[in-house]
């Protein structure tokens, strides 16, 4: 399997503070890669660098075959991104949001119209096409935001804590969407706080104080730490953390 993300000795410093400390890993095509870590461990900083939103202080990485230092624009055209905050335009209608972001990623009008109807049907949102996003329940918004992030068929989609504040039923549905996406060959790079979600990932990495302390399949991780819950393993690793918060 080809690697979609390759990270080599990536480091990010803010003044004297080393937010990301010399990390390396690879992510394969179509993989669901869980990126765990406590608050302030440096997860968001890594995602921001991989998306071309922030420049690394040292080291390098490629995403979808493009260099994050010099080809950030090509990377941006080939990824989808869903940030921590729910972020679609609340004062735009459902179809207007889809059309806006699809247009930004250079999709053709005809394709957008066609795909919008398919998407809304898949999500069961047919009746909400003309609804303002602000009128949707939070869980629906999250699903819509995710669908918009993969609407232009990117090679990788970065999800930064996509299920924060959502009830278990919707989280379950959300993960079904993630599986479907991975089946299409889109690589999913996801950070989460919920350890049960880590079990759904193909591989998980655990970040502590800017370094990656563990990177295995959930099964191998449990064997290695002789524990049957990722939650325990995470706690074992994270309690040594010096940083407490962002």
């Amino acid at each position, binding site marked *: 399997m080809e690697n979609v993300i390759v990270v080599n000795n990536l480091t990010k410093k803010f003044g004297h503070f080393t937010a990301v400390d010399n990390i390396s890993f690879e992510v394969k095509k179509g993989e669901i890669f869980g990126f765990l870590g406590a608050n302030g461990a440096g997860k968001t900083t890594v995602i921001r660098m991989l998306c071309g*939103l*922030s420049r690394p202080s040292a080291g390098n990485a490629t995403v979808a075959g493009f260099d994050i230092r010099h080809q950030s624009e090509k990377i941006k055209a080939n990824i989808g*991104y869903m940030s921590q905050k729910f972020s679609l335009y609340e004062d735009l209608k459902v179809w207007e949001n889809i059309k806006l972001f699809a247009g*930004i990623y250079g999709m053709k009008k005809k394709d957008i119209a066609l795909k919008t109807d398919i998407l809304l049907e898949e999500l069961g949102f047919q009746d909400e096409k003309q609804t303002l996003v602000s009128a949707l329940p939070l869980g629906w918004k999250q699903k819509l935001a995710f669908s918009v992030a993969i609407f232009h068929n990117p090679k990788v989609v970065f999800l930064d804590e996509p299920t924060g504040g959502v009830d278990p039923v919707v989280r379950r549905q959300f993960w079904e969407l993630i599986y479907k996406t991975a089946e299409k060959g889109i690589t999913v790079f996801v950070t989460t706080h919920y350890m049960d979600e880590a079990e759904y990932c193909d591989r998980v990495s655990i970040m502590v104080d800017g370094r990656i302390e563990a990177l295995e399949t959930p099964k191998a991780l449990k064997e290695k730490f002789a524990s049957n819950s990722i939650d325990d393993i995470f706690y074992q690793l994270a309690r040594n953390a010096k940083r407490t918060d962002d």
Partner: protein
Amino acid sequence: MKEFLTFTKKEFIHIFRDTWTMMIILVLPLVMMVLFGYAVTTEIGNTNIGVLDYSKDEITKSIINRIQESEYFTLSNSFNSYQEIEPSFKASENSLVIVFGENFSENLLHLKKADIQIIADGSDPNSARTLVSYASNIIGTTLKDLNKAPVSSYEITPELKLLYNPLMKSSYNFVPGVMGFIIILVCAMMTSISIVREKEKGTMELLLASPTKPIIIIVSKVIPYFIIALINIITIFIVSYFIMGVPINGSLFWISTLCILYILVSLSLGILISTVADTQLMALVISAIILLMPSMLLSGMLFDIGSMPLILQGIAQAMPAKWFISAIRKLMIMGVDVRYVWSEFLALIIMLTVIIGISLRTFKKRME
């Protein structure tokens, strides 16, 4: 170009769907025009005046008649003694009292000197000064017309002649002021709030992670406010020219250039504020305290800059509104050639360059 239009259209939708934004950008300018035009007026009209006439001869009578006929004064009180005057001020029955001494005509004819006293309410010094000068003007012209003016005293009575604004219409003053204020409001405050809103809601992050160049994101966010500011300016011009009778004496080309330059300065201020502020509230507070209030108070719109304390005069120089208002007054009302406003143009151009420079640097730093 295509994504440019997409973004601009989206921005217009944000504006049209937000009732408060619509109110501020469309209704507020008209409200301000009406307020300043008809309510907060510094003109004198229908002022009540009282008279205490110890002579009651034909000259005093004709002076009183003239005063009564003038559009500025209405005779409300005729006093019989000096003691009645102060209570009348306290009861707000009149804002001005004229007292004629005894034997006014005779003294004037024989002694070439007669006593006249004008009493005004000094608690409002600005209007008191104006009222006194109006009243003395009327007295002077009446005496001159009656040809009774004593050579020695009344020939040197200064006759007031106000260039460019002979009727002392305050609209000549406030129209440039309202323009200066509205543009700062729409371009600096509304723009900064709308950019910061995207930061706060997280959509800015989404846009930055897309292939769209940051410069296109910002410029397309700003364009709708540019267009709205133009519409506001044109509305103000139309209302002031056709309804309030404010003249447009200078070259339309240079007036438009000036307005566009000032709009650009204000927009760049909005962008600068948005790079500094993290929340909409912060953007609102910064624009209100650093821009709106000084633009209102220190721009020369309400108070004369020359008579302010030095430190305030210094702050006033840093206000784009001050330079704009000064230039638009000269161009529009005095109708001067553009070479007389080069310093205003230069100041605005320097401000534009500096502000854009700082915003670019702050923006890049944030990206690092």
